């Protein structure tokens, strides 16, 4: 149950903000400091949340922050927990989750490529989906896809 999970987290971590979103069953959103992510992920993993669903990133350009979102799922409780943390946009660095889940590699590689977030301790942040990409990572809000497409693809070379 959602309440059980909330109690569990509250009992072990004091400085986390827990939100149970409206209209959404079986979801718990928690916000933590970026240093705490690995610790809390490890705790949740030991308590049944063994499936790393996804890792993603949201670019809050007005605040100057990147928000990393980790989705964990428990096959026993059947609840999704989203761990959110905000990191600095100018120097985006975060500790890797590789020691906990091997498959974090795939997601971290993608975020590195699409947002330019650097994951400390991840050795394989090589180009993934894009090839020979130069300039700002494409998923950032200040990258204008429409303009890029117009310049690059809408006209012939002179």
């Amino acid at each position, binding site marked *: 149950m959602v309440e059980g999970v909330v109690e569990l987290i509250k009992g072990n971590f004091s400085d986390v903000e827990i939100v149970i979103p409206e209209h*959404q069953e079986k979801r718990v959103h928690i916000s933590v400091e970026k240093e705490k992510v690995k610790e809390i992920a490890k705790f949740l993993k030991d308590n049944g949340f*063994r499936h790393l669903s996804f890792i993603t990133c949201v670019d809050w350009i007005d605040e100057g922050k990147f928000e990393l979102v980790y989705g964990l799922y428990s*096959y026993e409780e059947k609840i999704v927990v989203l761990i959110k943390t905000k990191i600095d946009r100018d120097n985006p660095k975060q500790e890797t989750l590789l020691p906990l889940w091997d498959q974090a590699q795939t997601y971290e590689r993608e975020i590195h490529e699409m947002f330019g977030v650097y994951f400390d301790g991840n050795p394989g942040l090589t180009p*993934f*989906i*894009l090839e020979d990409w130069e300039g700002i990572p494409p998923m950032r809000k200040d990258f204008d896809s*429409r303009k890029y497409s117009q310049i690059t693809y809408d006209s012939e070379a002179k």
Partner: protein
Amino acid sequence: MKTYELFIGPQHVGITGNFSVILELEGNVVKKATPNPGFLHRGFEKLMEMRGFIHNVPIVCRICVPDPDPNEANYAMAVEKLLGIEPPPRAKYIRTIVLEFSRIASHLFTFGGHAGSIGLYTIPNWTISDRDFILDLFEMLTGGRVYHIFIYPGGVRRDLPDGFIEKAKDVLNYLEKRLDDYNKLYFDSYMFKKRARGIGIINKEDAIEWGVTGPNLRASGVKADTRKDDPYAAYGELDFEIPVLTGGDAYDRIMIRRMEVVESIKIIRQALDNIPDGPIREKVPNPMRFIVPPGDAYVKVESSKGEYGYYMVSNGKDKPYRVYIRGASMTHGIHILEKLLPGNYLADVSQIMFSLDVCPPEIDR
């Protein structure tokens, strides 16, 4: 022994789409596999940030080509969650019917692909042409064969046309009959068992740890299905089983899909029989000013490949602030392939990919 490099794809018959795996081989045995995705990258997540909430409906279905409807359902559900509305019951049933037909169509495609990869070309011809009957149904219902643009936020686009229920039942009866034919040639075939048994085994613990989802997870012995665990559409009201096998090899991964086709037929029959009357669409904001209150939501459905999730963030404007799409093949196609392929023969590489049902557009988006 000397190793050499072999490219499987992107231009290769044994690849599940536009995708590439670079193999390091020692003789006939794979030593290292490096999947190289990105050939189908269109930047959907970026495109969706540039389009209004209602303008995104036609493009989301393009994300996974063989099984497009989970995308539409996911997108609609995410918007509904943020708006705080529920679709009417009739719309939920119609969604269930469409989703399950889409699952059968996708599984038939997988059977064809896998049978082709072990050299049995009769099965692709049969399954893919039988899949066409489902596409005909879709054409009747939505007007499109492959992309349906049918599941809207708040409901569905059209009601069932006249004669649809009878025609759908005919197709189901026909498919059920055809499954016996496939059995004779494919599922019960001695050669199929000989080729597929014991190939690419994922055991139960690894399956959970590596993030395997969907039919591939159930083939490894974990009873987990979003349709039961986190019911959406009308699945909570219908009676169906979750088939589970324990082998975790290519054979079981194909057989579990065969069992799922039977369950899907059962689900559609129930949905067709019990479909309630009523409206098909909940009131949504004016399409010209489709504003969604700020918030974020993670929704997921069980697609034919596995857990298919959308994480949507809205900042109260008329466009989504960010949409993240979690395709099931993201793990299956990259991480699991890296783990599974080493140690196998070159001859089984394509078979393993098809049995995992890797769908490259989901990875690249």
